[in-house]
């Protein structure tokens, strides 16, 4: 497959850009922040639903658009440019991906319907602890009479406070399988501790105390939970990398433009070689970022057997370059860069949160080495 996006994907990218320029510029993110860290703008979300974004990756069989992840990636890249806040990561990227891998057809078609028409929001709760480490799983689902009960504690659940459904991972009683169930957020025994993070978005620590789970609310089936989880994580990481690519490009372009305007010592500061070379290096690294994000998105759509490798390459590379570019962007703005009035600081603050989400660069470099047996 050629490493380029096709015409339809290009059109989606352009229409997304137009939409976000109008409806969700960086100023609207600032507005949510100033409004006591409002979690999201519901009207904006319903317009995104109208645009078909919740249906992009859902197969036609379930009345979805089946547009594929390269398409969704274009949406994420543009959203990254605008630091646009919406439940799209939790509901579309994480939840619909996980649901589409499930064999529970009844639950699947019901959830897809509610997600596509925008009536319900959903998220995936997996991480336990302060670092992403999918191996750590202490939550437990045990059988009690006709029901199952869930006990455990999940950290850093994206959009946990606004989601109607929580897709939760837990061990079975013998510890031999990962189980994945859907929990109604209002169920008895679900407790939230909502926390605003540096990126002005809300994440939740959620405790499950003897929460009843019905037999037909499982998305995992006959021991396929671990595989579903791993693939969901791999795909989500690639989607995040696409968002990070948007973050990186916008912060870089804003900075280069600033260097062409700001004068000191009677000249444009962009004429200083000390700044020019750092910009040129970033330009090159961004070219590399574009390549791996596209390759990884294509690997999802083509069911590539190396998906896991491309996912880690993408998250590791984008993580380290986002770190570089977000720091340089603030530094090159000088004093104005550390004021709240300037938008550039928002990129830095989003960067550090999304970098650690589902594994930072170190986590993925380690994973890549393990894939190659060293």
């Amino acid at each position, binding site marked *: 497959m050629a490493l*380029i996006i096709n015409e339809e994907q290009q059109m989606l990218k352009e229409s997304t850009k137009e939409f976000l320029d109008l409806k969700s510029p960086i100023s609207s993110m600032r507005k949510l922040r100033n409004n006591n860290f409002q979690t999201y703008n519901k009207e904006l979300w319903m317009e995104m639903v109208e645009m078909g974004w919740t249906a992009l990756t859902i197969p036609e069989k379930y009345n979805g658009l089946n547009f594929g992840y390269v398409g969704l990636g274009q949406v994420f890249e543009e959203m990254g440019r605008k630091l646009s806040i919406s439940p799209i990561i939790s509901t579309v990227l994480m939840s619909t991906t996980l649901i589409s891998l499930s064999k529970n057809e009844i639950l699947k078609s019901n959830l897809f319907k509610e997600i596509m028409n925008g009536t319900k929001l959903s998220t995936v709760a997996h991480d336990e602890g302060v670092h992403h480490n999918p191996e750590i799983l202490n939550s437990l689902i045990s059988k009690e009479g006709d029901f199952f009960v869930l006990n455990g504690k999940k950290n850093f659940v994206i959009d946990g406070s606004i989601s109607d459904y929580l897709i939760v991972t837990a061990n079975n009683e013998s510890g031999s399988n990962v189980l994945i169930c859907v929990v109604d957020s209002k169920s008895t025994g679900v407790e939230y501790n909502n926390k605003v993070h540096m990126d002005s978005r809300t994440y939740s620590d959620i405790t499950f105390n003897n929460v009843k789970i019905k037999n037909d609310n499982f998305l995992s089936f006959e021991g396929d939970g671990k595989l579903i989880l791993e693939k969901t994580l791999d795909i989500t990481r690639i989607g995040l990398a696409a968002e990070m690519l948007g973050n990186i490009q916008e912060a870089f372009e804003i900075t280069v433009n600033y260097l*062409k305007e700001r004068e000191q010592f009677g000249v444009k500061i962009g004429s200083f070689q000390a*700044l020019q070379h750092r910009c040129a290096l970033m330009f*090159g690294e961004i070219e590399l970022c574009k390549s791996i994000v596209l390759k990884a998105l294509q690997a999802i759509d083509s069911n590539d057997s190396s998906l896991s490798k491309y996912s880690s390459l993408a998250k590791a590379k984008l993580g*380290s370059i986002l770190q570089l570019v977000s720091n340089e962007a603030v530094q090159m703005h000088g004093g104005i860069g550390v004021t709240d009035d300037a938008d550039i600081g928002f990129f830095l603050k989003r960067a550090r949160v999304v970098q650690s989400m589902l594994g930072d660069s*170190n986590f993925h470099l380690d994973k*890549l080495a393990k894939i190659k047996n060293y």
Partner: protein
Amino acid sequence: METKVNTDLTNFRMETRKWLEDNCPLSMREPTKDPSQLYWGGRNGEFSSDDQKLWFERMLEKKWIVPYWKVKYGGGGLSIEKNNILNQEMGRLGCRKPHYNFGISMLGPAMLKFASEEQKLNYLPDIVQGKIRWCQGYSEPNAGSDLANLQTKAEDKGDYFLVTGSKVWTSYAEKADWIFCLVRTDSSCSKHTGISFLLIDMASEGVSTRPIKLISGKSPFCETFFDSVKVPKANLVGTLNDGWTIAKYLLTHERQMIGGIGETDKKLHISNEAINVMSKNNGILSDTILRSKISEFEMNEEIFDLTIRRTMDEEKSGNNSGAASSFFKYYGTELNIQREELRLKINGFSSTEWNSKASENGKQARYFCRTKGNSIEGGTHEVQLNIIAKRILGLPTK
């Protein structure tokens, strides 16, 4: 229509794959370890093995030495698409390029764009057939990064130019048959104008060379001296005093070549080398700090390859990504330098041996030293970054 084109390309791919499998000797599919394993052609050119000779002759007969040049210039007349397929298929098997020649990678593209039809027919087929080995006469003692400051003079003497001056860093000048040269034909104007592009036979009276010994102990470069050398007027390429245009165009091809664009032989993975020679602990390299550096290096190596591919795919579809040759030159050589730094750490004491038999006369140590020139030759790292900053990012000069 589209389907017909696609079928044609698919057939070409299958035929190419089969032909390469049948015709490329197994030893020509192994990674090259140093430039002496490559065939450079020329009046005194020698094959380093029978397989190499066989591979060159078969590819020559197939017209795939320079597959994308027109047939009348000795090429195979392949379309961009077919040439890319051939490259991909050669890459799949790890086939070496049958013939290396600065005439193919640098002079050829410049001649195709700027030379007269007569000159093209005269010079290009000889390059393809490996008859003439070319070298490049650009840098001078006082014209390195500031290349346009060159002083080698070509005086108009009616029916010939009289060339006097010296060039430095001419790669393999002592083995080359001809040199393509930048010379000053007008010193009364600004330094970028008044330069011309001249082809000179190294066998001419007054041409001499002296090898430059590098920190590797080897001498891949020479100084080349021109002492009142008579060069026929017909050897001028392009317009008199407009050689700088050709020079810049040719430099983009040099950068791509140094950056490793279009290479088809397989690179050795340094992680495999590490697995073989280093100790492990529970399946993980004991030196965990080096392990993370190797992982990061191989990440960048793989993504850089993807970036070359993406750029070629974009060019094919008519879009220019802007990822210019300067960036490829910078990044490709940077990876090469980093690779050798890491290999020293991986191989420890044995990697710095200089002349033992076991070390093949210090092969690794000497190659490590050689890579330090990669970020200097063909325009230093700093010059490449200047070009990106100014021409791509449009950053101001003042």
